[in-house]
């Protein structure tokens, strides 16, 4: 026992080192997996507050660009208003509202990590729920994985844990879109039936099969595609519709019939 204590005392710093490393790596491991990040990630209101203040200041430098984007979006929305059409169709059937969009502001964002996240300044208090989709003014951006009272943490599209199925608008075919960790502008699409002929600029949109994103939201555009006729499926490179570098204003998608749909699923499974 005495010898053991002497031994421990002599190499104390080494054991402290091992202990601290074990703690850190343990923390990394628990927060690493997608499931783990759902459970472990407690979004901290304190750091969230500080980050928001900092982002408020740095946000001024990007106001011009941001305004341009918002103006563009307004123009698109206006062109969809009934007033924009000469003849108003009187036979329009109004259905129940299916989605509600909650505007939020990005207060923290990473681009160049292996797994990227961003934080937004809306939380439980504003009706944000876990596993809701987040879209930017130009396309889809991520999925909420943690919520506190005033903030929410979003798993960015720039994350190997995030694969989204998308539809090639030209053919209506489903493909999988994921991020290969290289560049924040580009992603990968896989499972493309190899008989399809794609050209640069072809559009990929969301399917609407899940409750996360509404149907037809922009995912990205084909950037590079080489058909592989010898194989069953081909791969390609896409450019994301969302520019993560300038991401500031986003909308959280709240699917209003989600509970009903999930209940139906559960009943069917029982």
């Amino acid at each position: 026992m005495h010898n053991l204590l002497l031994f421990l005392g002599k190499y104390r710093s080494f054991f402290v080192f091992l202990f601290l490393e074990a703690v850190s790596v343990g923390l990394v491991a628990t927060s690493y997996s997608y499931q783990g990040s759902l459970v472990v990630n407690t979004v901290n209101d304190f750091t969230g507050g500080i980050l928001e203040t900092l982002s408020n200041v740095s946000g001024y430098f990007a106001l011009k660009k941001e305004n341009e984007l918002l103006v563009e979006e307004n123009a698109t929305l206006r062109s969809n208003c009934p007033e924009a059409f000469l003849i108003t169709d009187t036979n329009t059937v109004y259905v129940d509202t299916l989605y509600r969009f909650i505007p939020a502001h990005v207060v923290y964002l990473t681009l160049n990590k292996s797994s990227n996240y961003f934080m937004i300044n809306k939380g439980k208090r504003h009706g944000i729920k876990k596993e809701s989709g987040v879209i930017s003014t130009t396309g889809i951006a991520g999925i909420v994985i943690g919520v506190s009272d005033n903030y929410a943490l979003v798993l960015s599209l720039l994350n190997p844990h995030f694969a989204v199925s998308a539809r090639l608008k030209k053919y209506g075919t489903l493909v999988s879109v994921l991020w290969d960790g290289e560049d924040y502008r580009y992603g990968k699409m896989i499972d493309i039936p190899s008989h399809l002929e794609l050209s640069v600029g072809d559009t990929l949109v969301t399917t609407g099969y899940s409750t996360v994103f509404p149907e037809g939201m922009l995912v990205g555009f084909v950037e590079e595609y080489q058909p592989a006729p010898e194989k069953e499926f081909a791969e390609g490179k896409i450019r994301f519709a969302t520019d993560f570098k300038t991401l500031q204003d986003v909308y959280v998608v709240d699917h209003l019939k989600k509970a009903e749909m999930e209940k139906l699923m559960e009943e069917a499974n029982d």
Partner: protein
Amino acid sequence: MINSLKNTLLFVTLIILQVWVFNNISLWGFMTPYLFLYIVLKVRVDIGHTTLLFIGFFTGLILDIFQNTLGMQAAATTALAFVRPYTLNLFFKTSDFQPKERPSLNRFKFGGFLKYVVVAVFVHHTVLFFLEAFTFHHFFQTLEKAFFNTLFTSSGIFVIEMLTQKKEK
């Protein structure tokens, strides 16, 4: 008293700058200067090894909390703190140091300070990049990233060192 105030100020400033400014720099998509390491690099030479480890761990952890990378920076900065005394012994004689001395460009001269900073930062970056990748699959690619990033961070640390040295004269 004035010294500890100065240290606290340096600590807070570097952490804020790291979170707000440096983390947003990404040269060629991956190079980010981790200049907060200056805090750990400048700790007194005669400090206890265990104390240094804890300083490293908590400095990293504070950054992790802001970055949502729980554990990553903590692990890397602890590793830096662990190798720091060995790095100093490797390049310098311990008897040369005065009590309470901090590693500095003035005393170590350009070459000495360069070796010290590059080795220590490289250890930090290697741990950080491998933890970030969480795989040894792209072993050399990750190591290459760590190496080039080390050059970037080290240059930044030299700039800070030169800026603060001028004031002290």
